[in-house]
């Protein structure tokens, strides 16, 4: 087990498995969020369902997500350090040929997403007043509207979603290869399905702040 | 010097089995006490080092490249022969033996060739077991093709990279033994001296090409698998690093050099394009299966675009001269015919040294797709190098030096005239006679390394007592001194020409006078010109840098110095052999344009013995007897 975690492939597998769990989560999360367009009652009832009626399940999911996130970030950090050490003297000139912008910005994007995650949880789950002074527990719909009436948060969330797009675009494509599951392809670098997944998730998420900002949700 | 070929008695088909039984064995527990040095890590060297280590010997292997996987065996494209008769087309060990002896123009030793044909079968099995990905049919069985004009399909291949795959198989076996501790690998080490004690090979002196350190290595037996000397022509299909230094140093220590004039010129190479050219690139001979070779009939047409030359003004000279074999005539014959056409002023391309290889007819007949299927990678390579599209304009080809059949003389046990010094692969002379057939080089390298030497070296080790020696022995000290002195001498000339420029000058002489066609006057002229170049070399060479670091100019200078002596030996041999046979074509000895052998006077191996820098080498003869294949004139008309 230790040997597995110690190897570069093992760590990548951990990243892949935890990444898959997180992808599953963001898809569900995104779908849940869209209920905001069905009105306050529906949305608050959905929040109540998660936070009261099936709170045991919610906690179980939270633990899985927390462990996944920690492992994902830890493995990413350790691999990044290792990868940097693998080239102590860098090239004076390097011209990337086929690597995507998404793959090259994955690490910094990931850092941004981690910061986003903390702030997002603070804002809507933990109710940190310095992030959202008007936070009121139980009033999920109102909290969202109040937050996104502030242009700063709209922009911040949209930037985060842009990084999520890039992260998913590379991650959902890479994960099947990391886990040895993808089929051989004539053009292995092509990625249509990952692009669709990444677009659906990020557009779905972005609709919420945009909906508030454009006055569709109020 | 007495040349004892040690050919076992008895019927040819039983000689090897009988010999294997009669040879002495080394006790398994004692094998690790014997230290064997293998110089070279190509097909022959790597397979020998790995196999001997598997048997339990303590092996050291040396390569001048950074890894054993770089050896030039890797560049062989076409395939490897094996008398498996999987096609049911009448192949047999006997037939492969016959084809090889005849192809070699009756200048090879029958017993060796028969053994080669026998073990060819085992080689294929061995390589498949190692995971060599030979081409397969849909049914999962091995694919074969006919090659180089053979009338049976006995060539196994792995795309156009057969040499690479076979070498990687041997390399992997070698790395396995390195990991196990049976072989110690010395990469980036070049052998610069052979050490003999009381006339017996007991070690080598190497230069560490990274640190410049000159090191002595003691062993109970030394094996040279250092390849051929084709780079004596400067431009050849060989790798830049290929050199004759190891075998030439051994020659100067007393190993006889056999048939140096037998060199093979390959007909399908990309012609020379510019004066700074360093290398000629070979394209697989298989191209001749569908390409038609031609030159313009009229000299005034050579400057025209090929499309502007009408059909009736083209001379398809191979089809004209050799109607039954046509474009598939053997290598030596096709090469000479190209030279004749160019000498006649009808050559095409830069310098008029090229002939067309035209696929237009085949493309019309089979379609461009089918041609792409068969030769796509070769066409791409051609276009990458020449920037011309062979689907639209005919390829231009010209012969180039490719393989050398001559090498150090060895007996049936692959031992040279120096006891303990064994020579394998292209570095020895034994199996190809005066001309090598296509797909036989890989076969011979692996036969020697996997299946012959591991037995015969045991016999040598078990039959002799070895005094313990160390590198403090006076002979080792003298050899180390000699290497150091030579290095300082090369570094100390401080002249005005680079080693490369001397190499180029030598190559020009050799190609002009000792290349595809030779004659007495030319050879005599070469024998006057080479010493002059050599003299200037030792007075006007410049080697920048020092001897205690990586210094590629110094490496090159040492190799060129040896080529400058060796070239003379080659011309001497070509001059003495007053007949035409195989790759050795003497213009004086021909009949209606075809090579004329003289079996009465020259049916022997010419083994040259070194007698000193200022005295002429002595010719020793090993008569060749043909009891199983009857001497006949090769005819491909």
């Amino acid at each position: 087990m230790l040997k597995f975690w110690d190897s570069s492939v093992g760590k990548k597998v951990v990243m892949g498995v935890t990444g898959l769990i997180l992808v599953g989560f963001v898809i569900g999360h995104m779908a849940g969020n869209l209920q905001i367009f069905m009105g306050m009652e529906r949305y608050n009832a959905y929040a109540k369902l998660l936070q009261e009626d099936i709170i045991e399940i919610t906690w179980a999911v939270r633990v899985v997500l927390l462990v996944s996130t920690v492992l994902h970030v830890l493995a990413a950090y350790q691999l990044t350090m290792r990868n940097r050490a693998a080239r102590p003297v860098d090239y004076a000139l390097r011209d990337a040929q086929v690597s995507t912008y998404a793959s090259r910005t994955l690490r910094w994007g990931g850092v941004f997403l981690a910061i986003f995650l903390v702030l997002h949880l603070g804002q809507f789950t933990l109710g940190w007043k310095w992030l959202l002074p008007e936070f009121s527990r139980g009033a999920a719909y109102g909290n969202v509207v109040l937050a996104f009436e502030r242009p700063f948060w709209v922009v911040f969330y949209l930037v985060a979603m842009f990084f999520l797009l890039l992260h998913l675009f590379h991650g959902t494509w890479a994960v099947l290869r990391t886990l040895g599951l993808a089929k051989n392809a004539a053009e292995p670098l092509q990625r249509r399905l990952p692009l669709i997944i990444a677009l659906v998730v990020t557009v779905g998420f972005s609709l919420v702040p945009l909906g508030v900002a454009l006055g569709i949700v109020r | 010097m007495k040349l004892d070929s040690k050919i076992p008695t008895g019927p040819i088909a039983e000689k090897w089995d009988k010999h294997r039984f009669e040879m002495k064995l080394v006790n398994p527990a004692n094998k690790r006490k014997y230290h064997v040095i293998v110089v070279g890590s190509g097909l022959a060297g790597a397979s020998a080092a790995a196999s001997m280590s598997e048997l339990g010997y303590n092996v050291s292997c040396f390569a001048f490249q950074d890894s054993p996987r770089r050896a030039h065996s890797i560049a062989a494209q076409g395939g490897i022969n094996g008398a498996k008769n999987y096609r049911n087309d009448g192949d047999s060990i006997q037939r492969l033996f016959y084809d090889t002896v005849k192809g070699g123009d009756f200048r090879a030793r029958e017993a060796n060739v028969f053994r080669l044909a026998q073990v060819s079968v085992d080689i294929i099995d061995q390589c498949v077991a190692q995971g060599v990905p030979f081409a397969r049919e849909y049914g999962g069985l091995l694919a074969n093709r006919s090659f180089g004009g053979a009338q049976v399909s006995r060539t196994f291949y792995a795309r156009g990279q057969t040499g690479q795959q076979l070498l990687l198989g041997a390399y992997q076996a070698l790395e396995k033994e390195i990991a196990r501790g049976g072989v110690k690998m010395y990469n980036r080490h070049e052998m610069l001296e052979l050490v003999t004690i009381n006339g017996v090979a007991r070690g080598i002196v190497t230069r560490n090409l990274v640190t410049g350190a000159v090191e002595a290595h003691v062993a109970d037996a030394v094996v040279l698998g250092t390849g051929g000397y084709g780079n004596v022509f400067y431009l050849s299909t060989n790798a830049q690093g290929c050199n004759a230094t190891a075998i030439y140093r051994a020659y100067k220590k007393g190993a006889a050099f056999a048939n140096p004039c037998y060199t093979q010129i390959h007909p399908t190479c990309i012609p020379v394009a510019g004066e700074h050219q360093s290398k000629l690139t070979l394209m697989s001979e298989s191209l001749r299966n569908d390409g038609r070779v031609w030159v313009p009939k009229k000299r005034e047409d050579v400057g025209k675009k090929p499309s502007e030359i009408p059909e009736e003004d083209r001379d398809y000279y191979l089809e004209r001269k050799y109607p039954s074999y046509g474009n598939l005539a053997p290598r030596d014959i096709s090469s000479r015919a190209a030279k004749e056409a160019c000498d006649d002023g009808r050559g095409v391309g830069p310098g008029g040294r090229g002939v067309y290889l035209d696929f237009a007819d085949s493309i019309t007949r089979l379609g461009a797709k089918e041609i792409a299927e068969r030769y796509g990678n070769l066409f791409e390579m051609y276009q990458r190098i020449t920037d011309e599209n062979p689907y639209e304009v005919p390829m231009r080809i010209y012969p180039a030096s490719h393989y050398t059949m001559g090498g150090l003389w060895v007996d049936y046990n692959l031992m040279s005239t120096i006891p303990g010094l064994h020579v394998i692969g292209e570095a020895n002379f034994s199996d190809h006679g005066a001309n090598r057939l296509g797909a036989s080089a890989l076969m011979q390298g692996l036969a020697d390394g996997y299946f012959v030497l591991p037995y015969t070296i045991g016999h040598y080790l078990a039959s002799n007592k070895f005094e313990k020696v160390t590198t403090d022995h006076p002979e080792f000290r003298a050899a180390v001194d000699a290497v150091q002195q030579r290095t300082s001498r090369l570094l100390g000339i401080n002249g005005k020409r680079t080693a490369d420029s001397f190499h180029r000058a030598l190559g020009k002489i050799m190609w002009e006078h000792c290349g595809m066609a030779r004659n007495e006057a030319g050879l005599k002229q070469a024998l006057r010109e080479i010493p002059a170049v050599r003299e200037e070399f030792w007075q006007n060479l410049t080697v920048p840098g020092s001897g205690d670091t990586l210094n590629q100019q110094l490496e090159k200078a040492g190799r060129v110095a040896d080529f400058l002596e060796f070239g003379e030996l080659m011309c001497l041999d070509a001059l003495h052999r007053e007949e035409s046979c195989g790759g050795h074509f003497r213009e004086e000895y021909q009949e209606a344009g075809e090579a004329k052998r003289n079996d009465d006077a020259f049916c022997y191996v010419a083994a040259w013995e070194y007698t000193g820098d200022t005295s002429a080498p002595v010719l020793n003869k090993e008569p060749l007897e043909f009891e199983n294949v009857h001497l006949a004139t090769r005819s491909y008309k």
Partner: protein
Amino acid sequence: MSGTMTIKLKVWRQAGPKAPGKFEEYTATDVSPESSFLEMLDVVNDKLALEGKDPIAFDHDCREGICGMCGMMINGVAHGPSKLTTTCQLHMRSFKDGDSITLEPWRAKAFPVIRDLIVDRSAIDRIIQAGGFISVATGSPQDANALPIAKPDADEAMDAAACIGCGACVAACPNASVSLFTAAKISHLGLLPQGQPERYRRALSMVAQMDLEGFGGCTLFGECMAACPKGISIDFIKRMNGDYIWGAISERPEKITLGSG
């Protein structure tokens, strides 16, 4: 066959493994567009040698794209601008008169510089030593046709086996990962029936060795595949990962049995 070109070169010069390196500039004049890239360097070196200066050291041997000895970063691209081409088969017609070209050695912790553009690639030999072979001794194996191998498997194994071990994958990888090389050998042998008995053990030990050598991990950038002169697909990395995972799951501790003799 237009006229000759003048090329400005900026070359990494380093006298030895421990010596500090720096860029130096040279001008190559009268370069024929027909000459190969290394022939252009030959001419520059000839000139340097005649001036008594140290020529630029670079590895090369076969000059026909198969030995894997040559390789350098040419304007930030491993083996230069032509696809599926080694440095030795790159021709000067790929450049224009007056171009500036920056030359650097492969850079990776596991590939220390020996001199100028020459690096020590022995790490990849050690990865092969860790298991890149089939444990069969020379002898009398079964007949070659006793083991049929489906053509697609043989073809795919050959695709992987085409690797020339030049190290361009490492050089091009932003992580200096050797995954493509390692995966190619694991796949070549793992696709063939002969390679099955050692398949998972091989994956485990070769991956362990590549980590031990200090190469980076794979992030699937795809740069290795673009740089590979033999076009080896990153699909083989997927295969390596699969074999590694299965190997880790199914690994059994090796029992030490006492001698029975």
